[in-house]
């Protein structure tokens, strides 16, 4: 049986992620867990997240999950969502500077609100970046299967990621500036938006993940 572990570190709306996975994979076993062994035993792993990155990394360490997460990222299909994308990079400037897991080279910064303008207007853009924005796929990937180029997904975040390695950028999105809205390598794929809240396009991405063998 296909077992999908959703990493539970006490932050964010995890129920929605589980329910969306159960919806697209009714025969899979979706398991919300903070147990290292369960992560290592699962067939695939989802790393969701919301809130502050400092709290996220601290909780992962408090629950001794870091080693297991790094281990499963070597082999299993792995999907990071929102903070689960940002935490993969080297460093975030959130909270005065926080080290990420360093799985992907790159950094996470606060949207420079004063330099971002409404199209055709001089008003500064709002932060958080909240709502439905277009995701421009810049690399072919099994997880984009059946999803239109430029499809809209639901975002809510104040910090944005910039992957340092161009080959690891899977999608970009424009909000005042252009940022990395999906990144990955080999068996790792991570998105800034919330597929579990992005209606048909989001459910399709999750469905693609559930049947993905982890090769790009």
């Amino acid at each position, binding site marked *: 049986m296909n077992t999908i572990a959703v990493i539970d570190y006490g932050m964010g709306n995890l129920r929605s992620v589980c329910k969306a996975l159960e*919806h697209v994979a009714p025969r899979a076993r979706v398991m919300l867990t903070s147990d290292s062994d369960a992560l290592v035993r699962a067939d695939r792993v989802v790393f969701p997240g919301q809130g502050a990155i400092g709290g996220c990394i601290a909780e992962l360490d408090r629950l001794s999950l870091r080693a297991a997460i790094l281990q499963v990222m070597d082999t299993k299909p792995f999907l990071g969502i929102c903070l689960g994308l940002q935490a993969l990079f080297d460093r975030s400037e959130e909270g005065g500077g926080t080290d990420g897991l360093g799985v992907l080279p790159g950094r996470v910064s606060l949207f420079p609100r004063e330099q971002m303008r409404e199209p055709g207007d001089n008003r500064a853009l709002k932060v958080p*970046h909240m709502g*439905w924005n*277009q995701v421009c796929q810049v690399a072919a990937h099994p997880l984009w299967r059946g999803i239109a180029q*430029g499809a809209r997904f639901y975002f*809510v975040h104040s910090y944005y990621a910039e992957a340092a390695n161009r080959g690891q950028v899977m999608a970009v999105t424009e909000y005042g500036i252009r940022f990395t809205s999906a990144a990955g390598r080999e068996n790792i794929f991570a998105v800034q938006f919330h597929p579990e809240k992005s209606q048909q396009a989001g459910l399709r991405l999750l469905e693609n993940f559930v049947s993905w063998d982890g090769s790009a």
Partner: protein
Amino acid sequence: MGLSKRIIPCLDVDNGRVVKGVRFVDIRDAGDPVEIARRYDEQGADEITFLDITASSDNRQTMVHVVEAMAEQVFIPLTVGGGIRQVEDVRRMLVAGADKVAINTAAVANPQLVQEASGHFGSQCIVVAIDAKQVTDGKAQRWEVFTHGGRRATGIDAVAWALKMTEYGAGEILLTSMDRDGTRDGFDLALVRAVCDAVSIPVIASGGVGNLDHLADGVLLGHADAVLAASIFHFGEYTVGDAKRRMAERGIEVRL
């Protein structure tokens, strides 16, 4: 191309049932909030808002079940408001499956609640709901914050309050004009614009929508990031799709 403006249908829920009458042509149970939310989702709603108007706290648990059921079937963002008094209430709704929680009266009574809740759960899930009424104050146009469903004046200036709540960690403002609510005369655009231009976070305009152009006006003239409406959608007069097409015709970027 970029971020689209959002259209948010709002449902008043009393003890687990939608009130104020929602009438779709072919819906089985017009009182079931999840079924109605599903219909709006099919029409292309960008988010759904449930306002719990249940008076007794015994029945609040019912709202938790409604939110749980919604999370199993509708995969767009859900905001829940009404009766949120403490951090524990916020946690309960988030765990049940809400994406955002709206705080209104309790934020005025205890502004630290907003600070605490956004500190715990992140700004992205804390919406501060503001009910505002225009007050006569010499020549200057000014709006005052009201609480308890618009019954109690607070003496607080609505724009200053929106700024303070932003500082306290709110991720979004849900702004309702008490003067316009239920009138179908359109948003109080001066109020919407005053708040939208003052704060750095997204603002949802609410109160007074009677036709589709009112929604577009909220964005184009009021500078709203999102527009909320109830009755124009509930009675089957317009679908969310109609609203989006009208907004697109007026040059607004929407998710079609």
